[in-house]
């Protein structure tokens, strides 16, 4: 171990030790982390300011408090934090109404209703081409249903390679809240024409998606003739409502997240205190290689440094353009070289009055300062295409 790193390693293990100690006491309000707020990098495990000053950083990492006009390695102008800004204006009520469109478990959707049959018709017209018949998915677009949601929810403990099937993760089996579906259909669907559905249309599509997931509202199956309105919508309980950690609702929500992410064990993380340098794997190491390689990359992988290949198709405008850009433009692209400049209508009108055959002839055999074929090795037909291109760009 070399000198430069030793210093930092010592501070790492110090922080790691502190971190472990802290992890043990996370739960309610964590006390200040007691490492003098800053490490050698200027980092602190707890906030110095704000409503949660003294608490651990919410993501399990560190923060860089401002000390002497520096935050970590960065200089800062602390005067910018004194307020006194009056830019912008207050939104009007109509503006707020137009944009404050969140639909959440705490902000219900607007009044409205729609039935399963209308939803099915709308789905076939606007959704099925991507999401497949009855929400079966396809072409890489998400499936919206895979049989009964309550049965499917039980598959979430499946692990491919260990169990035969993987977990079934669709709206009915996985999503914790129905509000998400309403909101997303209203704002983001249909994919090519979002924000085009009325509230009633959204209700009918939601009704249809509940139907194909074989879901119940208030004990009643959402059958083929079910009519969904806001009151019924608010009674939806998703099968996987409690399938998510940490719990983020209520006044303790953020502290729950703080406690969860500050415990490395919850997410398969590891601390520096567990650092092993020698004989870290006992016995044979098992090397897993790629079984079938995925390599449909666009564009194909290459680190070669060459000129891009230009397909030279006779008569192709692209090839002609590329030839022009690559060669002819040197003289025909700017004044001062004596050649008629592409884009100069007057100059090219004069050229073309000679007749196109004469122009081709000059291009092929050269004229004044211009070498035969402009110094290229293009076939006559390709060269003529370049001339055509230059004329077309000068009309």
């Amino acid at each position, binding site marked *: 171990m070399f000198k430069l790193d030793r210093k930092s390693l010592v501070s790492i293990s110090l922080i790691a030790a502190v971190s472990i100690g802290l992890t043990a006491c996370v739960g309610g309000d964590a006390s200040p982390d007691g490492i003098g707020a800053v490490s050698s990098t200027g980092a602190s495990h707890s906030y110095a300011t704000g409503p949660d000053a003294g608490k651990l950083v919410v993501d399990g990492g560190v923060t860089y408090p401002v000390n002497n006009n520096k935050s970590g390695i960065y200089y800062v102008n602390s005067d910018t934090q004194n307020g006194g800004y009056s830019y912008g204006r207050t939104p009007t009520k109509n503006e707020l109404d137009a944009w404050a469109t969140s639909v959440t478990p705490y902000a219900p959707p607007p009044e409205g209703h729609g039935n399963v049959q209308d939803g099915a018709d709308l789905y076939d017209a606007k959704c099925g081409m991507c999401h497949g018949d009855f929400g079966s998915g396809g072409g890489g677009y998400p499936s919206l249903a895979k049989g009964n949601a309550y049965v499917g929810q039980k598959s979430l403990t499946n692990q491919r390679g260990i169990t035969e099937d993987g977990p079934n993760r669709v709206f009915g089996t996985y999503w914790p809240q129905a509000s*998400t579906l309403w909101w997303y259909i209203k704002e983001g669907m249909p994919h090519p024409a979002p924000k085009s559905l009325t509230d009633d249309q959204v209700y009918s599509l939601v009704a249809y998606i509940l139907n194909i997931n074989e879901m119940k509202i208030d004990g009643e199956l959402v059958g083929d003739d079910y009519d969904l309105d806001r009151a019924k919508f608010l009674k939806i309980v998703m099968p996987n409502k409690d399938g998510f950690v940490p719990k983020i609702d209520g006044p303790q929500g953020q502290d729950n997240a703080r406690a969860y992410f500050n415990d490395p064990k919850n997410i398969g993380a590891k601390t520096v205190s567990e650092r092993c340098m020698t004989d*870290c794997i006992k016995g044979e190491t098992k090397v897993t290689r790629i079984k079938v390689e995925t390599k449909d990359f666009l564009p194909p992988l290459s680190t070669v440094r060459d000129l891009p290949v230009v397909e030279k198709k006779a008569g192709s405008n692209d090839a002609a353009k590329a030839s022009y850009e690559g060669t002819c433009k040197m003289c025909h692209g700017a004044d001062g070289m004596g050649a008629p400049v592409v884009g100069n209508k007057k100059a090219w009108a004069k050229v073309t009055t000679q007749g196109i055959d004469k122009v081709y002839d000059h291009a092929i055999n050269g004229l004044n300062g211009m070498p035969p074929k402009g110094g290229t090795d293009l076939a006559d037909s390709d060269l003529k295409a370049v001339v055509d291109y230059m004329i077309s760009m000068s009309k």
Partner: protein
Amino acid sequence: MNDNNSQKNLESSSNDTHNTLARRDFFRKSAALSATALAGTSLFAGTKAMADDPAIINHVPWGIKFGDPVTKNLYGMPSEYEHNNTRRNAELLSSGNFYASIAMCPIQESEGIITPNGLFFSRSHGGVAQVNPNEFRLMIHGLIDKPLVLTLDQLKRYPSVSRIHFIECPANGGPEWRGPQFNSVQFAKGMMSCAEWTGVYIKTILKDLGLKPTAKWMLAEGSDNSEMGRTVPIDKVLDDAMIVWGQNGEALRPEQGYPVRLVLPGWEGNLCVKWLKRLEFSDEPFYAKEETAKYTALKPDGKAVQHFYANEVNSIITSPCPEKPWTDLKKGDMVEIEGLAWSGYGTITGVDITFDGCKNWTPTKLKGLVLPKAWTRFSFMYKYEGKPLIIGSRAMDDAGRMQPTIEEEVSVMGVESVYHRNSIATWEVTEKGEVHNVQIRS
């Protein structure tokens, strides 16, 4: 990414035996070619018969004529010879089209810690929106005393800060939970890039708006096709959350949310909402689609981690890599092993390297700027001996976290979580110097 389906597609592609353009063959051929070249060189070395290099003997074409006038390409372009240094896509990472899709950053070609704007990885849920900056409005509302509407010019009047931060999609490496899939560092780890962002801290704006004490969460919503929105805890908003308009010294690129995006240093790229439109403060979370249906990590007990904020400490060796093998080296050459380390928790404090598939480890040296929540370069000088190796890197940060082994991570997260995979990545280096993506499972 539509990860459910991507995983599906990956599976089906694993059964696809029609892929004939074998990358290994490609490298074998180039290895053979360079071997011939070497043999040729040594044959003539020390003799007067050595062939002269026409690149030296002859005048080069660009030396005997005009170059381009300075008026060409007033917004500069890379050399045409660099056309292979580009973002790349794979159909299996797309939701059936290239609108809800991702283009990977060519990190095998990255230099230093800054990604050029044209190469920054690009992910969208309804295509790259082309926003007219004159019609851009940012609305801040909800649990604040004074709701606010800003034009772009008004927003840019606030005092600015510039910070170098990586942005990483939490699905970076996600297709490889069950085994290696891509013989490419661009596709194995290219869902990330690093840039200098210029904008304003949200806490600076909030000073004058009267944030209510009951405000615990902030919704950030985009104005794009998908109206992409995510919930952010107030602690992050009041710590280092930024609204940015500058990227590496110029306006954001459309692919990064022009004219304005959110940057939450170190956190999931998906949380750094692009084409930003509004910020709404609330006492309860919003349950947006991309924080429920997606971007949640399913564990083997059937519970999924939601609000999984920070991208964990991570690293990858970029030289050598499958795209940049050691097939041109000869025994005894001293060669620099280089890589990138990054952590959404804080600052990289060290990176270890293994040559024997994670059994034994040696510290590497960090080099260049070492900044919080930014790409950090590590370097190790190695004497090439033409021996088969399994090399890998393991990063640590000042939050006290370090990368787990694959077994350690999978034992907790299973293989279905899609997101937040940060276990140690390894390359197999063959006797010929070819490099392949492999995984070590003890």
